[in-house]
């Protein structure tokens, strides 16, 4: 049975996360898609900042002994196929796992329908009719290492950029941070000054990309030890939260609930709060055709995320900062899937 303190800590981190996602319009679907669709990099910059901040934060906390890193296991077939399906689904659903979740809090019925598809297929792929596909890909393409190296939980067999070549993770971390910050400095712009008092800037206006990135990075740092304290040694995640939520409902078993379940519920609450304060909450729905498209997109998100054992948050926001090879492969194929679909659906006329 889940402890009340775990429920509370999951909810609090979730509310902070949801509030920030809504204020920052943080959406990886838009971040990746806009690169080719609009030649717009603002949200991508927020994603890069969030990854750099949490990468530095996770490694500092691990060096201080506060946490033990826990990169996701590598099954390249599952990461490639799951990533591609997730990337396709994200364009159809009008949002990634976190984008879809926070938009439910804004009152977007299309995103709610996408979320229903996402939960349903996550359970079907995790423990239902499609679980064979997942376990086949996972077992046939698995690659493990014998020594996880420093800062990582000793029981881990997951390859990372550091342990696969046997160097100290800090060397890789510093290289990535320098390259990332260099890229941000090279593609400057969009920092634009917003008008108004500090409280207006926080509660009424959209946040600039750098603020969004830094705050999400800090929330990820808080999430890691908070979640680890409840026995789930991992930072943020969305997919596991929703699949445990639906599983608990179907099986009538509260034991499947975890810290992540309350995290995702918190995200919806936090986004609803942020949207209400800013005057951006409204129940609204697109036409029936788009609703069906978003539902199918949601189904693909769930299938992809569960096959790959993580979504854009579990892999890209939480796994990449831990240097997990699996998360890097997943992220790459999410972008390929996203671009392919955006091209076919939105750019070809």
């Amino acid at each position: 049975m889940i402890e009340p303190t775990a429920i509370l800590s999951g909810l609090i981190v979730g509310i902070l996360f949801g509030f920030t996602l809504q204020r920052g319009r943080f959406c990886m679907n838009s971040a990746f898609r806009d690169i080719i669709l609009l030649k717009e990099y603002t949200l991508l910059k927020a994603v890069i900042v969030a990854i750099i901040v949490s990468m530095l934060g996770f490694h500092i906390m691990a060096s201080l002994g506060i946490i033990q890193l826990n990169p996701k296991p590598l099954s390249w077939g599952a990461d490639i196929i799951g990533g591609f399906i997730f990337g396709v689904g994200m364009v159809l659903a009008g949002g990634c796992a976190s984008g879809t979740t926070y938009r439910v809090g804004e009152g977007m019925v299309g995103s709610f329908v996408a979320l229903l598809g996402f939960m349903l297929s996550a359970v079907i792929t995790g423990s239902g009719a499609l679980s064979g596909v997942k376990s086949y890909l996972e077992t046939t393409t698995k690659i493990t290492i014998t020594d996880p190296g420093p800062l990582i939980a000793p029981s881990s067999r997951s390859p990372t950029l550091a342990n696969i070549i046997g160097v100290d993770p800090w060397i890789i971390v510093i290289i990535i941070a320098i390259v990332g910050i260099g890229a941000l400095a090279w593609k400057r712009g969009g920092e634009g000054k917003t008008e108004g008092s500090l409280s207006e800037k926080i509660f009424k206006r959209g946040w600039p990309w750098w603020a969004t990135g830094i705050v999400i990075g800090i929330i990820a740092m808080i999430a890691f030890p908070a979640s680890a304290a409840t026995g789930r040694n991992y930072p943020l995640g969305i997919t596991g939260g929703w699949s445990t939520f639906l599983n608990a409902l179907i099986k009538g078993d509260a034991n499947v609930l975890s810290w992540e379940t309350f995290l995702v519920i918190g995200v919806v609450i936090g986004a609803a709060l942020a949207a209400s304060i800013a005057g951006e909450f409204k129940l609204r729905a697109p036409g029936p055709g788009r609703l069906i498209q978003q539902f199918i997109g949601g189904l693909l998100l769930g299938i992809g995320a569960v096959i790959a054992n993580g979504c854009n948050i579990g892999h890209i926001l939480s796994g990449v900062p831990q240097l997990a090879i699996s998360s890097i492969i997943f992220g790459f194929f999410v972008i390929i899937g996203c671009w392919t679909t955006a091209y076919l659906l939105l750019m070809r006329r």
Partner: protein
Amino acid sequence: MSEIKPTETLDVRGEVCPYPDVMTQKKVKSMKSGEILEVLVDYPLSVERIPESVKKMGHEVLKVEKTGASEWKILIKIK
């Protein structure tokens, strides 16, 4: 310019991104120089995005007006 009469109105309420942006761009391309397009939108990100992308295409954004709870009206003059 007290009250501007739009030539055409595009209603993208209820749509999530990228559809408001994409539909606006498509509409703008189909219109003639000097015409005014009115876009009704209720998606906050798109309210920030549409003016940006329309300006990039070389058109003029006359007005972005909040018309209600999470509802906006954007007026675009085609160049």
